[in-house]
């Protein structure tokens, strides 16, 4: 069954490439280069050092804004999940921030704080933070009260209760916030870079757009998807496996 699933997944991937190849040959135009050309451009960009440089900068921004969002989001989310009054007070704020379009936050940050690295990171954090807060808040509300009572009766204390009772229960919610966070943040970062930075993936893609260089745009996209997939496979999946090893 496992093998069959893997085969299906490989077949579907090959089909996607085949459709792309077919369309590219059919259209026969610069606007849709064939996979082979894109791979060739990818190789050149890596060799020239351009792609690693810009990809690295974007990844650094991603790591910084992601870490800040997750850390603050978890802390605030747990606080709101535990304290009903604070939750009631900030609920409206959350709804407002959740509904502000990303583009608006980015432009406002640039207008208010200048075209700086700080503005760029802040814009991404403001976009991501409400999602993390909501996810973690729901996780905190769903904590098993029986286990918390047990921890109280056996005098676990705050540290032990958090580490051994609360955090393992929040783990699936943190992982959900991480996954949706990575997907959301990297999309926002590209816009942030496109609008107000002079380096990074977003800046490069804007450049290629002006040159109508679709092959480079696709090459950068593939590189970025590969990096995000590697994070999923090399970091998130093993973390999940380790944390859920107790499950039957």
């Amino acid at each position, binding site marked *: 069954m496992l093998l069959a699933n893997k085969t299906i997944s490989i077949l579907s991937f090959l089909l996607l490439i085949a459709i792309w190849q077919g369309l590219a040959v059919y259209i026969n135009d610069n606007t849709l280069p064939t996979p082979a050309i894109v791979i060739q451009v990818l190789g050149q960009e890596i060799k020239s050092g351009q792609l690693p440089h810009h990809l690295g900068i974007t990844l650094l921004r991603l790591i910084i804004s992601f870490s800040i969002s997750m850390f603050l989001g978890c802390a605030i989310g747990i606080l709101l999940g535990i304290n009903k009054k604070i939750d009631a007070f900030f609920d409206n704020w959350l709804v407002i921030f959740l509904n502000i379009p990303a583009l608006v936050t980015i432009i406002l940050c640039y207008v208010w704080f200048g075209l700086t690295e700080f503005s760029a990171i802040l814009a991404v954090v403001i976009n991501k933070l409400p999602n993390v807060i909501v996810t973690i808040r729901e996780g905190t509300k769903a904590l098993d009260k*029986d286990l918390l009572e047990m921890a109280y009766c056996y*005098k*676990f204390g705050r540290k*032990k209760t958090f580490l051994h009772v609360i955090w393992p229960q929040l783990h699936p919610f943190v992982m959900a916030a991480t996954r949706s966070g990575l997907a959301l943040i990297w999309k926002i970062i590209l816009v942030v870079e496109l609008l107000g930075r002079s380096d990074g993936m977003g800046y490069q893609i804007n450049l290629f757009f002006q040159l109508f260089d679709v092959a480079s745009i696709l090459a950068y996209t593939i590189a970025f998807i590969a990096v995000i997939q590697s994070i999923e496979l090399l970091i998130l999946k093993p973390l999940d496996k380790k*944390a859920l090893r*107790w*499950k*039957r």
Partner: protein
Amino acid sequence: MSDIYIDIKSKTYTTADSQQHTAIADLKLTLPENQFICLVGPSGCGKTTLLNIMANLDTQYEGEISSGQNHIKPSIAYIFQNPRLLPWRTVRENIELALDKPQPDIIDTLLETMQLTHIQHKYPEHLSLGMSRRIAIIRAFATNPDILLMDEPFVSLDTPTARQVRSLLINLWQIRPHTILFVTHNLREAIALADRLVFLSASPMTVVSEVEVSIPRKERNKEALIESFRQQLLDKHTIIKDLI
């Protein structure tokens, strides 16, 4: 460790339609050191409320729970109806977490007495309910409390498993004596386990009668003896019939 005194003047709560309801009224009990006491009463009479008060999970009451001459608060260990083990920690880790400092020797002895040494590194989800209950018992004994509170811990076990866990519990208790307050609505179970039975009434809950169980410990596995003691109790104290 010393005797423990329960003196609850009243415990009230407000129902959904804003009615004041008295759950416990004038409940006085002395629990002599290392005695095994079974509280027997109808379902919903407030037995769990009493245990929650003793465990400090419920502080909205008038009265006092104290121990010894100096009236200090006794330390407790609570064995819940549901074992309440952390599913993401192994059996051994679950026991270790309840302790202030590592006591590997004590854990080893307890695991051996409860015949669970072989599963100590397994996760609770991989174990049967009977095993999980035994782990909850070990966790409670390991903390060496002034009193062990047990809230119908064998309620959903099948008869042979319940009998096995009961006998392991008594075995453990005889090796490491503790005061135990055991809640049940099963009179046969209470007779098989207890030194003393305390019968409770419902709404409000109060002590109706106290009976010493005279069957020697060695003969508690004889069903016929338990049954005849039960019958005698029911004949002698007609009020008990209405309580169970």
